């Protein structure tokens, strides 16, 4: 895997990266002493000397937006924790990395867990939580072991447990394993899962900041978001903000996969152009073939055609192009690929992962899967494209959580943008791309 961090040095006076992907190829920093030798835990010491609300303010000023997909400002979210609640507060880290195309959080879990754990300490302190759970997807057996080992090292040296670094602040951090359910990456489903239940999303309001885990105020943040928190403290909110674009601070990890020469993780400033990611960092397309489509932010985000990829990869710019930055999981496919076959994989996934709670999603994702598969297999009927658009439209916005939207958006965008391909499948009664 090519995971070279791209040097994000910019204007003079700004600190130079990489900030997040600091491990070189094949390298991992799993011993606390190695992390400390690189200046580790300075941000934690800095934060613990501040008032907790001042830490939250700093993160707000940094415009650190949630890296799990929604892009909600982390500091604003932390500010929703009620100040007067006598209940315990919880910080939950979402390490259920499951959005197809996304493989960035794995980097921290298996190669660099300490910046994540520093962020856990700082965020817990800011929201006044004394217990934090890191929810790691069950497939990550090795990664669970690595994070647990890192946590043990921190307990042994007084960075976790009672009276962290003699400051009077106490924090316990536990890994909670997932057990194979994409929906548990949805924050309220994740809470249900920790509570020992099927991962069925909750109605909101109340939001987790008011009524979250075990009925207590809870903040849920993605791994990469939490790993950014020490950077905010180390470099200051202003410098962090300048690493990105206005309103969207910091460096970003981009996941590039599919038909590119160098698939992998690339760290670059928030707002890096999608074409730069594909053609410079990932080395261009396999065989230098022309691009047919790019899924910019994970399989749920609307596909972009080749003439739509001149876009800055930040939350607002990608939205302006009619798609979403999501988890910055860019999947590239080139000409010669059957777009219907790509959509088959995506619709099958969402049908499989629907929790079944809301009728439009439970029934609708099955319809989307069956109709797209029948088109791909040559048994599609005239009118199926409109049927798909209609079914997708009836799921969109009509479900408790965003999985319904996640299933509907790719269908709408693929059918609209590659409609001629879908119609050709139906007219010819076969996949025109299949060699058989």
């Amino acid at each position, binding site marked *: *895997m090519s995971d070279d961090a791209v040097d994000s040095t910019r204007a003079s006076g700004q600190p130079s990266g990489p900030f997040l992907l600091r491990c070189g190829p094949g390298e991992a920093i799993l011993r606390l002493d190695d992390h400390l030798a690189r200046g580790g835990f300075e941000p934690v010491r800095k934060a613990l000397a501040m008032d907790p609300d001042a830490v939250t303010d700093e993160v707000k000023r940094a415009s650190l937006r949630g890296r799990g997909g929604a892009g909600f400002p982390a500091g604003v979210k932390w500010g929703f924790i009620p100040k007067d609640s006598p209940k315990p507060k919880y910080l939950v880290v979402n390490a259920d990395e499951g959005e197809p195309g996304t493989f960035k959080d794995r980097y921290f879990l298996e190669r660099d867990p300490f910046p994540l754990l520093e962020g856990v300490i700082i965020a817990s302190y800011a929201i006044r939580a004394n217990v934090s759970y890191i929810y790691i997807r*069950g497939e990550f057996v090795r990664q669970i072991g690595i994070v647990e080992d890192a946590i043990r090292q921190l307990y042994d040296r007084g960075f976790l447990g009672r009276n962290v670094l003699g400051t009077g602040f106490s924090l316990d951090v536990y890994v909670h394993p997932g057990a194979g*359910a994409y929906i548990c990456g949805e924050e309220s489903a994740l809470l249900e899962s920790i509570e020992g239940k*099927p991962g069925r999303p909750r109605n909101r309001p109340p939001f987790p900041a008011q009524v979250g885990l075990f009925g207590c105020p809870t903040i849920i943040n993605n791994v990469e978001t939490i790993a950014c928190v020490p950077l905010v403290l180390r470099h200051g909110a202003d410098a962090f903000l300048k690493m990105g674009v206005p309103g969207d601070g910091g460096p970003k990890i981009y996941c*590039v996969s599919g*038909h590119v020469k160098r698939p992998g993780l690339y760290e670059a400033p928030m707002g890096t152009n999608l074409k730069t990611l594909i053609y410079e960092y990932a080395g261009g397309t396999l065989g230098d073939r022309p691009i047919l489509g790019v899924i910019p932010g994970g399989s749920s985000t609307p596909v972009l055609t080749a003439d739509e990829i001149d876009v800055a990869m930040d939350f607002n710019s990608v939205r302006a192009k009619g798609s979403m930055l999501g988890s910055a999981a860019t999947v590239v496919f080139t000409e010669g690929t059957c777009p219907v076959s790509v959509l088959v994989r995506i619709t099958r*996934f969402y049908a499989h992962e629907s929790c079944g709670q809301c009728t439009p999603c439970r029934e609708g994702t099955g319809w989307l899967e069956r109709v797209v598969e029948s088109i791909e297999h040559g048994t599609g009927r005239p009118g199926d494209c409109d049927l798909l658009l209609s079914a997708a439209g009836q799921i969109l916005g009509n479900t408790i959580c965003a999985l319904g939207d996640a299933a509907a958006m790719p269908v709408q965008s693929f059918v609209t943008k590659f409609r001629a391909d879908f119609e050709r499948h139906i007219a010819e009664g076969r996949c025109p791309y299949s060699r058989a």
Partner: protein
Amino acid sequence: MALRFCPDNEARFQALLPRYPNRRAALIPTLVLANREFGYLSREAMEYVASRLGLPESYVLNTATFYTLLRKHPVGRFHIQVCVNVSCYLRGADHLADHLKRVLGIGFGEVTPDGLFSLEGVQCLASCGTAPAIQVNDDYHEEMTPEKVDRLLDALRRQALGSGGDRPGTGGVP
């Protein structure tokens, strides 16, 4: 024969309990342990977990059946999961899956007659940058080719001849 955790897993189970304000929250980690120790979650295994946590059996069944890694059927000693999602598909996952099915003589959801291998198509493993990927028990094998699959199967067969103590792999032990 009544099921019970081995001493190591009993210690892991005991360590889980103080992490949560109630026993119900320890359910999924305990099911993960049971899945790993007993190979899959038989009715008996779920009843055992229910009794250890003081939960109704129906409650345990309701949760266990929601999660794909909590297996309801036995798998092979080496459980091979092939990612069939979009990034792996674009990098040849179908060819890889066809190759595995051919050399093992089984389809997805099946176990070889000798109980050594089972095969399953799974959703995204978060290995999109190193596609196509498979997971065998706890370990990921990435940037796979049919040739690398053949070498891996040979190594696993040799491992099976060399030792007898390996259990089927399932989800993570907390």
